[in-house]
């Protein structure tokens, strides 16, 4: 991944942590998953897509990470985790479904960090 994408990656990490905290709060309060949490999660997905497109563009411009397969794997995981998590919880709005958002957001943050480490 090109160095100029690092700030976007850190924004993804920071925002993912905020989403995880918000979802964790909902879980702690045993509240049904609010619509705004889904919207926050989708904004995270948009950020991930921006980062993913940037990283993909960097690869297409000839940048070669140390392990291409690992880097591409993290890239794919980055953009897939949240839609899969939200898709699996589409009809489920009980408080524990916020826990799934916590897991997905934290996983997204970890994958974004790993993406930077494998660039």
């Amino acid at each position: 991944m090109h160095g100029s994408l690092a700030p976007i990656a850190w924004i993804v990490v920071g925002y993912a942590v905020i989403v995880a905290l918000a979802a964790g709060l909902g879980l702690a309060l045993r509240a049904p998953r609010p619509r705004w949490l889904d919207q926050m999660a989708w904004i995270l997905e948009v950020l991930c897509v921006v980062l993913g497109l940037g990283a993909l563009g960097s690869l297409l411009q000839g940048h070669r990470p140390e392990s291409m397969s690992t880097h591409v794997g993290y890239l794919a995981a980055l953009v897939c985790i949240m839609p899969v998590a939200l898709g699996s919880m589409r009809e489920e709005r009980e408080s524990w479904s916020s826990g799934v958002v916590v897991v997905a957001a934290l996983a997204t943050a970890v994958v974004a960090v790993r993406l930077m480490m494998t660039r």
Partner: protein
Amino acid sequence: MTTTSSTLRPKRGPHLVLMALYALFILASGSRAAVQISTKFHVAPLAYTLSAVAAVTYIVGWFAIRRAAHGKPRLAEVMLWVELAGVVVIGTLSLVKKDWFPDASVWSDYGGGYGWVPAALPIAALLWLHRTHEKTPPNQGGAA
């Protein structure tokens, strides 16, 4: 919603989070094992094979928890203990027989490479299973 689908519907609860974590570890350990086995299997064949075994364990664990949430806990009762034993045995071997593990497997150092979540996961799932089936009479809990 039909009677059949409501009967098949699993109970709500923490198993949703457990299943999400298992799905995540299927992805993490499965892709890790696939990349390592396909690109550098000769470096640490035992460690990479054990990572693949961990991935298979997580797949079966995911289905086991899903079945347990539908009132069929037998597979989960076996698989979660198998998974915990795997983490403990491989974690211990990775510490006392370092030459067997030139590279880390998913369960090396009791899953330290993944924040020790692999060690905590089967324990959390066993606690959930224990609490769920303490509360649930044998004939209750969904599809037979």
